[in-house]
């Protein structure tokens, strides 16, 4: 146990609340760990034992809140799948949180532990809900709890702003869902999903289209689809890391859960244009999402942008499935659905791993700004290794699972290209392929940048120099994620079978996996060749005589500040996409006091550089809307002028109006 008395920076970061005061929080974590562990095992057996073709939407039980308002709970394979991911991340988070929340003890720790788990449970309730009331209840509770968790650091103005933006946007989206469900209820006359499902084929196409659009807006906001994404890069980075992991890993995918549930259970079969709409939105999201990630230097913010991108990829896969289905290629549609689930699993794993890792870094250095990090590879090689695995998965480096998911999509697109009936369709199919390629390459570059800036080269600041070893519990969580990710990469067929069985429960039979041999073949070819090369070089030229020298820095002695910064690294691309990004660069001279003494001697002209990224959806849509509402409100508010005569005049004139309204019956 470390003491809290010392005041200098690293020890403050290392402060741990007395163990006795953390007992209550620990109790919560252990309790929920056991609950999740049990449900994890149970869900796995359920998924492996139940038939993929078993009836969907089985209702387990019903609780009447009011005589005609129910909580209906059910479980089918789709729910079980999402529940599995939630429970798995829940397990990891319990371990991680114990290490992450070291400073909080006593009742506060207990309360925060409960809040965290309430959030996880609310996500579980979302996937278990089988009627609209309970679904919306759980959905909104989930949003609200994540907001409360986010507001833990609410004293920082940025967090307060982000939290407000988040909760307002998500609530607005839920408003769309309210309308959607209520229209559905009006059409079907029922409120539970099975009741609504009975009527799905009688919904007229135009109304179905309206419902679909409402669902896309409502669920798309949670999933961070463009142009409803503005909250995501603000909110995800500011939450505590394990909450970010949960939000990015599962919560955004629950948007897709909702969409799947609506489209496959409650609406008539999807026509072609639904698929095209989702594909276009998905493509825009994937590309813009990662493009916005270009200029940020905050790791978690970058990860949030990457979440937007991956969410776009999921939308792309889903939309493609509908397009394939509409073109009569059922097998392809099934494969797309399988790819969707495959990518979902992989993304949940690597993204939560990355967020947890970012949390570790924040914990040990006190900063998330990559421009202040560097050289952490030597201080924490194990974290660096695992993070390299996560980053590589994110960057679609071939034998890893991230690539495999993308590969399935690529191959399916190639087949879709052949299936598509006309030239327009073929050219259209090229679009997602190119989007996949371009966003993939951009992700690669950004993943490598962030990894390098955090872990490689020399530390850029005192914080990075004085990083202390992270708590074993946090690292344990990372180990577990990394282990599972490796398993997934080594045997993608396992995941694919699960995904395929889910696609099967939508009545679509995906094709057999073509990539089962990939990982072993990779190993048996590349490792021997590598060894061969290495041994040959060694045998021929012997051990190298290595001399360590400072790097060449144009004749002066190098300084950590000379190293590249996050923005500098991607400036060339950022400048090329200046138009799309609405990007502005501000240079200004700074007074000499503001410049670090060390830097002063290397930088002859002191320039301050600031890049401003403009999110067009936020600046062009939401800010004007909010401004308009406020301005209109101010105008309307003038009616309440304080003048009682005016009030009375309004009262009497409205009375006369109402009397005039009913007057026809008297003048007849």
């Amino acid at each position, binding site marked *: 146990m470390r003491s809290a008395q010392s005041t200098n920076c690293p020890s403050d970061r290392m402060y741990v609340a007395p163990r006795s005061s953390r007992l209550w929080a620990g109790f919560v974590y252990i309790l929920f760990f056991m609950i999740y562990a049990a449900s994890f095992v149970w869900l796995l057996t359920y998924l492996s034992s139940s038939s993929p073709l078993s009836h969907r939407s089985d209702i387990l039980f019903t609780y009447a809140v009011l005589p005609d308002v129910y909580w209906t709970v059910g479980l089918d394979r789709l729910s079980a799948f999402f529940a599995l991911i939630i429970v798995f991340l829940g397990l990891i988070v319990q371990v991680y949180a114990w290490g992450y929340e070291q400073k909080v003890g006593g009742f506060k720790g207990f309360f925060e532990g409960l809040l965290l788990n309430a959030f996880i449970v609310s996500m579980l309730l979302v996937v278990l809900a089988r009627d609209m009331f309970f679904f919306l209840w759980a959905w909104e509770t989930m949003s609200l709890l994540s907001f409360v968790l986010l507001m833990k650091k609410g004293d920082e103005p940025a967090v307060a702003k982000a939290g407000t933006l988040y909760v307002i946007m998500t609530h607005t989206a839920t408003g769309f869902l309210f309308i959607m469900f209520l229209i559905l209820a009006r059409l079907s006359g029922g409120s539970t999903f099975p009741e609504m499902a009975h009527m799905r084929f009688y919904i007229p196409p135009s109304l179905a289209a309206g419902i679909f659009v409402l669902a896309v807006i409502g669920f798309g906001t949670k999933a961070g689809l463009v142009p409803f994404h503005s909250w995501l890069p603000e909110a995800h980075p500011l939450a505590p890391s394990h909450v970010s992991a949960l939000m990015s890993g599962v919560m955004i995918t629950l948007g897709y859960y909702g969409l799947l549930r609506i489209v496959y259970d409650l609406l008539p079969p999807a026509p072609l244009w639904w698929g095209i709409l989702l594909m276009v939105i998905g493509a825009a999201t994937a590309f813009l999402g990662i493009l916005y990630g270009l200029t940020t230097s905050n790791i978690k913010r970058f990860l949030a942008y990457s979440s937007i991108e991956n969410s776009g990829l999921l939308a792309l896969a889903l939309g493609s499935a509908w397009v394939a289905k509409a073109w009569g290629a059922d097998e392809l549609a099934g494969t797309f659905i399988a790819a969707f689930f495959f990518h979902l699993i992989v993304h949940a794993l690597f993204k939560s791993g990355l967020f947890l890792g970012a949390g570790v870094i924040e914990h040990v250095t006190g900063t998330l700004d990559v421009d202040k990090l560097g*050289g952490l590879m030597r201080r924490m090689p194990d974290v660096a290794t695992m993070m390299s695995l996560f980053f590589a998965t994110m960057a679609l480096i071939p034998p890893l699972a991230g690539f495999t998911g993308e590969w399935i999509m690529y191959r399916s697109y190639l087949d879709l290209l052949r299936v598509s009936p006309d030239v327009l369709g073929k050219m259209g199919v090229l679009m997602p*392929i190119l989007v996949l390629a371009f966003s993939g*390459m951009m992700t690669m570059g950004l993943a490598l940048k962030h990894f390098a800036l955090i872990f*490689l080269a*020399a530390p850029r600041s005192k914080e990075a120099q004085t990083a202390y070893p992270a708590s074993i519990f946090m690292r344990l969580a990372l180990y577990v994620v990394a282990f599972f990710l490796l398993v997934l990469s080594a045997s993608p067929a396992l995941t694919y079978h699960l995904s395929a069985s889910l696609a099967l429960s939508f009545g679509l039979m995906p094709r057999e996996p073509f990539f089962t041999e990939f990982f072993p073949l990779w190993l048996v070819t*590349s490792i021997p060749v590598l060894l061969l090369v290495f041994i040959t070089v060694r045998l021929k030229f012997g051990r190298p005589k290595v001399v360590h020298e400072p790097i060449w820095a144009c004749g002066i002695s190098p300084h950590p500040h*000379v190293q590249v910064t996050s923005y*500098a690294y*991607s400036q060339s691309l950022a400048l090329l996409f200046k138009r799309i990004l609405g990007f502005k660069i501000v240079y200004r001279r700074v007074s000499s006091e503001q410049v670090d003494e060390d830097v002063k001697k290397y930088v002859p002209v002191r320039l301050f550089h600031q890049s401003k990224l403009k999110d067009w959806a936020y600046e062009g849509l939401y800010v004007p809307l909010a401004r308009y509402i406020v301005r209109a409100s101010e105008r309307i508010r003038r009616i309440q002028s304080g003048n009682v005569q005016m009030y009375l005049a309004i009262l009497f004139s409205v009375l006369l109006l109402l009397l005039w309204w009913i007057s026809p019956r008297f003048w007849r």
Partner: protein
Amino acid sequence: MMNELIRLVWITLAQAFVVLFFSPLFNGVIQKTKALRTGRWGAPVVQPFYDLLKWFKKDVTLAETHSVLTVCVPYAVFTLMLLLNMSVPMISTAVPIAWLSDVFVFIYVLATVVVLLALAALDQGGGFGALGSSREMMLNFFIEGALMATLLVIVYAGGTESLALSIVTYGKVTNLGISYFLLLLAFFLLVVAEMGRIPVDNPDTHLELTMVHEGMVLEYSGRYLSLVMWTQMMKSWLFASMFVNVFFPSWDLSKALAAFLIGQSNYETVSFAGTVLETLLGTIFLLLKMLALGIIIGWVETTFAKMRLFKVPQLLGAALMLALLSFLASLTP
């Protein structure tokens, strides 16, 4: 069965030899052409090979701040590039490593090589490495996108997802017409870009304003530099050979000639000796084509000026557009 295995081993060895040995020479041909065009005699064609050997023998100087990545990456990229070279048909229609020749795997492994190099460039903590790395990733973004489009056209025409098969069959597809020429142009631009040649990059410069690839490897020395440079040469070789094999195929010629020389009229069932002969002939044809390409590239390098870095995406965008147009042209007979 046994026969097949022996044949595979032979082709693997032959192709590995061709790749490893001739890729520096291809570089040498270009250098020689440039020298001649600029009125110099220049270094001998085998000079790049000598350079590589020289670097292998030298001691290594590394940055103080480097990590284990710096020493691992050269071996890794060398291996991967070699594997990539083995996954496309080069001297005969047979492919040593078939599983890597799926077009998407191919592209992503290629990108992995770039990523690893860029990572190693950042590992040393120098300003120039980072500069090169940054530029390389920017170019890579456009190159791989255009490459994806171009290879897709080839693969689509081939009716399979395997790049290796499509490279063989693309030339056989008749009535390509305008599509063929458009794609040829697109692919040529890509070859230039992937090789890091003028007008995209200038491999001869060490000026921070212009260099891309050279910047990345600035901190390397000794055997590591040699491996990295060799990797780059193999990359050039890979694309150049793909280019000539796709657009100017000679498989049937070498096969028929081999069958004729050995006295078999039916060249579907060539014996082992026939295979050897076929690969030898294929090698000769390949070298001839590559010599021509090398001269053309050398000629281009001395004729054009290097583009401004921010203009390069336009060039690659043109390649992408050409590929798309070619695709469209192939759809409409």
